[in-house]
């Protein structure tokens, strides 16, 4: 069995500092192994996106430890966090978050360029990804001209540009029609089958079942279900 690539210990996150505030995450413990595909389910406000933001280094925990690929994310400064996101995290958003004034290829190239990769190897890598994800013909198009599914494929290509050990996806099919959603679902599953660690936040149980071998469910910031624990001898739920 692979070693854990994500370790979360006693993580709490409170946005409101008042005593009566309800934490978005409350004492969460979680481990994700390399090559695992984890789906995080839960209702709105359950803490799913907060968990994803903490793993991505987009936000800091109020308490607890977040370690990803051997990096203590909760201890990093802003510059180190940027470096961490470049090298270790690929992120796919619900609304794609492509930059509309850059063409598809430039969007995909961005993470490599920010990391200082030389242009030619970066272009070769971008071309390879666009080809693999089936959007190479749109390389010089602007995102506004693509369908939702195509845009999400471009977003996935961008997320994989720097070969991150962890791919995070926040409601990746939430803004897509059924056909496009299925398309993206197959894509994520394929990536995981090739060994990519994927953490997926979604409302969509079908997506979770299709893509993830393990599912956890959050409720009011607490872990209420973990299929891995349930599968283990003596596991709860």
């Amino acid at each position, binding site marked *: 069995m692979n070693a854990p690539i994500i370790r979360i210990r006693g993580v709490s996150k409170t946005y409101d500092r008042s005593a009566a505030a309800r934490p978005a995450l409350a004492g969460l413990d979680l481990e994700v192994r390399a090559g695992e595909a984890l789906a995080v389910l839960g209702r709105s406000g359950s803490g799913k996106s907060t968990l994803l933001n903490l793993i991505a280094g987009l936000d800091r925990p109020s308490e607890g430890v977040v370690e990803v690929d051997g990096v203590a994310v909760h201890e990093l400064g802003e*510059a180190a966090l*940027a470096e961490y*996101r470049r090298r270790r995290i690929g992120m796919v*958003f619900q609304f794609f978050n492509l*930059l509309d004034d850059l*063409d598809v290829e*430039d969007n995909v*190239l961005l993470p490599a360029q920010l990391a200082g990769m030389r242009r030619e190897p970066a272009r070769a890598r971008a071309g390879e990804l666009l080809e693999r994800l089936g959007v190479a013909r749109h390389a010089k198009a602007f995102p506004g*001209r693509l369908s939702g599914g195509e845009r999400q494929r471009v977003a996935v290509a961008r997320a994989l540009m720097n070969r991150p050990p962890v791919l995070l996806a926040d409601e990746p099919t939430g803004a897509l029609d059924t056909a496009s959603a299925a398309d993206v679902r197959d894509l994520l599953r394929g990536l995981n089958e090739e060994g990519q660690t994927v953490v997926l936040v979604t409302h969509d149980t079908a997506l979770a079942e299709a893509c993830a071998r393990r599912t956890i469910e959050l409720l009011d910031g607490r872990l209420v279900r973990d299929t891995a624990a349930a599968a283990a001898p003596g596991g709860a739920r």
Partner: protein
Amino acid sequence: MSALGKVVRAGVGRKRVQTLVMVLTTMASVTACVLAVGLLVAARGPYQRSFADQHGAHLNVLYDPAAASPAQLAAAAHAPGVTASAGPYAAVTVQPRAGEDSSIPPPGSPLPAMTLVGRAQDGPLDGLRITMGRWVAGPGEVVFPDGRSPLAVGESLRFPDLPGQPTLKVVGLASSVSWSADGWVAPEQLAGLTAPGTTPAAQYLYRFAHAGTDAELEADHAALAAAVPAGALTRATSYRPAQQEADRTASTFVPFVTAFGVLGLAMSVLIIGVVVSGAVTAATRRIGILKSLGFTPAQVARAYVGQALIPAGIGTALGVLGGNLLAVPVLGIARKALRGGLLGIPLWVDLAVPAAALAAVAGTALVPALRAGRLRTVEALAVGRTAPGGKQAAARRAPGRAPGRAGAAGLLAGVRNAIGRLPVPRSLSLGLASPLNRPGRSATTGAAVVLGTAGVTLCVGLTLSLGLLQDGLEAGRAGEVVVQAPIEGTTKPPERVDEAAVARAIAARPGTRAWYSSVPTPVAVAGNTGRSEVVAFSGDASWSGYQLVSGRWFRGAGEVVVGAAYLRANQAKVGDTVTLTDHGRTTPATITGEVLTTGDFVYVDRATLAPLGGTVAAEAISFRIDLEPGTDAKAYVDALDGAVRPLGLGAEPGERHINIVVLAMNTLAGTLTLLLSVVAGLGVLNTVLLDTRERVHDLGVLKALGMSPRQTVGMVLTSVCGSGLVAGLIGVPIGIAVHHEVMPAMARAAGVGVPDGDLGVFEPAVVGPLILGGLVLALLGAVLPATWAARTRTVTALRTE
């Protein structure tokens, strides 16, 4: 509070940074405009204002009390045309010497003959304003006219030829708009200043119904002379010389104050336009929400004009206050240079400038507010949810879009792609392409930076040119050491100077680098319609700093250089021949050049005067010496003094004078430039802030992809680099062009030409930093928003719609 009022108040309170920027921008703009307009008003007709304020006299008349009774003199106040009079004041004409504490005229040196009047500070006419020190408290004190004082406050003058050898201490300087006297003392002082056997004259000051021209003044003079017994009116001077000098100085200020005023006004309008329209445009989605709640387009327009007017109103009020506070020192210096004018900003300026500024704010807010008000609600609501590129993408997708717009969009995309291929880090190329997101706003802000850079260029050019001009005008005072006749006590000046021996002593002294001598001569220029003074030079005057407006310096006998005043008065030009004459002998000389001087001088080589006998006034000869670098000037002076004493001369350190007019101009130009730079910087700050806020979501995406805080700062700063650099490249030539128009205009007003060297101050070493100045100005304005962008939390940015 009505719904509209609540919306306005909330809009102002919620966008604190934007509100603050709007307050600061309008404040700086209004301050600059109030000051510029105030200065323009101050520079136009300052004399007339002072004449009215101080009840100036048209004629200052001295009567011989022995030739007319007091009643007869008093009756002259009823002469035809007289509208007011003051007097009698006792007046004496004296020939004092500088006291032992004198610094500029050597102690004991004779001062010019002067008419001292015993009177109080205030009077029905020619009220005197103290500009330094205080009014006389009693005998033993004197107040001199500001700008025409032979001594500084605190120094003394003495009268060795009068019984008891009285001494007067200078206790103050006063401005007199009528030049009614050369100095004022306590009335009880007059007895001690009157030579035995003489009687003080009686001074009367008069105003007339008609005294605007020399002819009218002559008629007034004649009317007074006719009103008193013959010979009783011994002297009359008019206010005209004072007026002419003040007007000439004032008119030198007009061109550059006008240039700065126009730059300031244009920039203020641009920046206010950018700030206000940007604020309204940024609120388009909010406008959509208001419309969805039932606001009419008119209500929306009113709300956003009101929202712009509140911070602009605060900024305008602060700007008026700032302009008036800054005006105190600035107008004080201008007043000193102009010898009159405004003490503060006129009320109409305080009302007109803010009214114009608020009208500009309302106008620039109204256009985008009306446009937003007319937007379909659903479109307005959608604006905040799509990135700027989204609109372009929509435009690309839209069928039947205007070909021109499509072409422009394609061009922008092409430029953006080209920038993306530049061999610079991606964060920087993203910044360089950023102005293309809002080309109109970027261009307007760039135009403001252009004007700011032009202002800085003009200021630097003026400062350099005025410095060079001052050096040229002060060339007659060149030299670190001066050898001239020492006038101490009652020592008689030498009647003859062995110039060759003095020259040998100077040349032999270690540390001497160069020297020349100059001396006024009694030589006249035949047919001269002016009152030119012919000054003869010996030695090497090439280092003295005399500047040629045209032609060249004389190279020996038979050549002269003259000032503009000579050329003007005699309708002469360079190349003409003049005839020098002395004691019936004549010699021709060719005008080889026009020298920079405000006086009516003719400069010649001593050899030119040889055919005339070469008579010079020995007591007025001065040797001006330039020292080798590192020479101890004091030790040199002491040693040389010992060497030239036996020859009847003395050595002393040279003096440099600070020209108050040049100082005033430099101060004004510096203050206005600073204000223009602040306005331009605030404009950049506002533009970058708006751009950054509009693209904060993209910023969040970039940060999520790994853009570091340093890269974020770099991206935002480079977003202004292109426009800053372009602004420098355009603004500097504009500033140079304005300088080349303004400087000659100022010089013409002062009655001189500008030597090419004084105009050509923009050498590469000056132009290079000035071009970069536009960049620096833009970068300074972008620093705060860049820091803000770097500190924005990624999650917050990603959540921003």
